[in-house]
């Protein structure tokens, strides 16, 4: 169900990378099959798309940072503007706007896609 952990090269060089991955999942009220057939992440969202965060696939410390900024499993996330070139992208989450790089957005799994009407 979870994708194999990506190799990011030189983790062994840093002792702070010895920590385990967090896998935070909320009780899914919707159809679980959807999230399994569509292992989508925040990178799959285009501007104006909306999704619910289901899982943070990052080391504990990094996940904690994201959660403190509002990226909690179950949170509603809307994709906003991006820097020229599409990376990083600003996401509206929990009342604020946070810029996240693609490499991080890829680790933030979502479970529903939809569109919110654009602001005029």
């Amino acid at each position, binding site marked *: 169900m979870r994708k194999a952990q990506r190799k990011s090269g030189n983790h062994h060089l840093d002792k702070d990378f010895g920590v385990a991955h967090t896998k935070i999942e909320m009780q899914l009220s919707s159809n679980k099959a959807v999230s399994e057939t569509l292992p989508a992440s925040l990178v799959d969202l285009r501007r104006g798309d909306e999704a619910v965060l289901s899982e943070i696939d990052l080391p504990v410390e990094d996940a904690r940072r994201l959660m403190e900024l509002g990226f909690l499993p179950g949170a509603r996330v809307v994709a906003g503007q991006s820097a020229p070139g599409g990376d990083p992208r600003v996401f509206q989450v929990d009342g604020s706007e*946070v810029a996240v790089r693609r490499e991080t957005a890829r680790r933030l799994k979502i479970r529903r896609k939809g569109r919110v009407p654009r602001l005029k």
Partner: protein
Amino acid sequence: MSECRDCAGCGPAAVLPLSPRAATKAVAVIGPPNSGKTTLFNRLTGLRQKVANFPGVTVEQHTGIAELDGGQAVELIDLPGVYSLSPHSEDEQVAFDVLTGRRDDTPKPEAILLVLDSTNLSRHLMLAAPILSLGLPSLIILNMADDLRNRGGTLDTEALARELGAPVALVSARQGEGIEQVRDFLAGAMEQPTPVLLPVLHDVPKCREWAGRVGSQADYRAPIAPKWTRRLDRVVLDPLAGPLIFAFVVIAVFQSIFSYVTPLMDGVKWLFEVSGNWIAVSLPPSLVRSLLVDGVWKGVGSVLVFLPQVLLLFLFIGILEDSGYLARAALIADRTMARFGLQGKSFIPLLSAYACAVPAILSTRTIENKRDRIATILIAPFMTCSARFPVYTLIIVAFLPNRQLLGFLSVRTVAMIGLYALGFVTAVLTARLLKSSILKSGRTPFLLEMPAYRWPTVQSLGLRLVDRSKVFLRRAGTVILLVTVLLWMAAHVPYTHGHPPAIRDSLAGTLGRTIEPAIKPLGFDWKIGIGLITSFAARETIIATLGAIYGMDHPDSTSMDLQIALRHDLTPGAAVALLIFFAFAMQCVSTVAVVRRETGGWKWPLAQFAYMSALAYGGAFLAFHLLG
């Protein structure tokens, strides 16, 4: 971002003792980043701030005195912005240690002002849990009340106070609204918070759940999204217009620095000439007169001339930062940073290094990854700090005509932007080198909160400028003055038959001529050599030194026009070499000191000094030989 207030002017001489006022209570101001802590702090303390943030004195927070009615005063401690109190990075550690009284250099706070952004209360309330658990008397300040109201948000402060067991004040620090409530809290009997049920502090989802529940108990209705921010972002972050706006802003800043400040600079120059003449006339010819007029006045005066330009630069940086544009600029620049193996968190220290490397190096504490942190510390001094700025200006104005390129850009602006770019490119290339060799590491995510756009306030901009002037003047009055006096003495030894020696034969001249063989390949003569020696104390000292040397060399000259003298002594190729030398060399004692302290040893600062010196010498050598 340029935490310019942090730069205490780099230098051991810039130490201001925190006067211990036995009777004053200490109160900590804490809150998440962007909650308006500093605005509130400024509002409460006015100009009575002590910037205590430099090597040697282990204080990483600002303190200031808030005067209350009835002659009471409270010492406020402005702590770094944090999202939680579980120490993950070093600035959170600092905040935690101060709050729990574990630091010897800061009094243990007797109370806390917790500043939260009322437009994003549900999330910001998360920080209330660890703060309240400390059990200190606390006032929960919900800032940005004006924004909340304008965007249709509401809240019941009394209900919130009940839920939190602590008093709550809805204020707008920018407008000064509700500040009386804060003053009343500070003046009154501070009461312990009523114990309330708090969540498990280390469990973020639980904390968020708790914060959401408390918010809804207080009938919190979040405001609607800031429409103008979204609209502006659509333009500012447009794939095409975005980078153009970015370039336009940078060019406009430098262009105006060169074009509009000249009358002001001439004014300061004139002031020094007139007052120098006045001293010369009113004192009998003596050594004292010579020291005052030729040494101090011409030396320190030639640096102070640049105050208007430095202030204008900081006015622009202040506007960009306060308005929220700087965060967008960081976003646009991030991809370039990533390409060089730097993470986004390095961006803020690097930006603030444009003001001064010392606070920049201190602000690397937010970087959790140790290798990334060291890499950022090592490259920060390449960024064009404000001490390089007067040196660049002097040489550029002396050697480049004020001609227009393409009809709107002055050649001088282009040269200045080129030098800023040179520093930046060298920094990122060095980062690339470090990150692909000795400092390889995994990446930590780049996360940057985009603040809503706001109008910068006159008060906040004014305070920045006052702070900056203080720093500049303090440096001129301490480090630079000291070096100038020492130089004057060295220029008057050996004193024979009641006459000072010709500057060439003096101790200073001998020193300069001793190193001349080493700097000859760069196109510099012994006078520049003396300037290079003194500039290792602080970069802009070279201006004071040259001002004093030329002043003593031509005692009749009333003009402090260094430019003519420089044109006489340097070929254009050598001038470029001098610029490049200053762009690369680590001529700053305070930076070396702060790197040593932050990396915990001499290994890194020495390697950095050697690397930067080699680069400076090599670069200047190449420039002189290719152009000279």
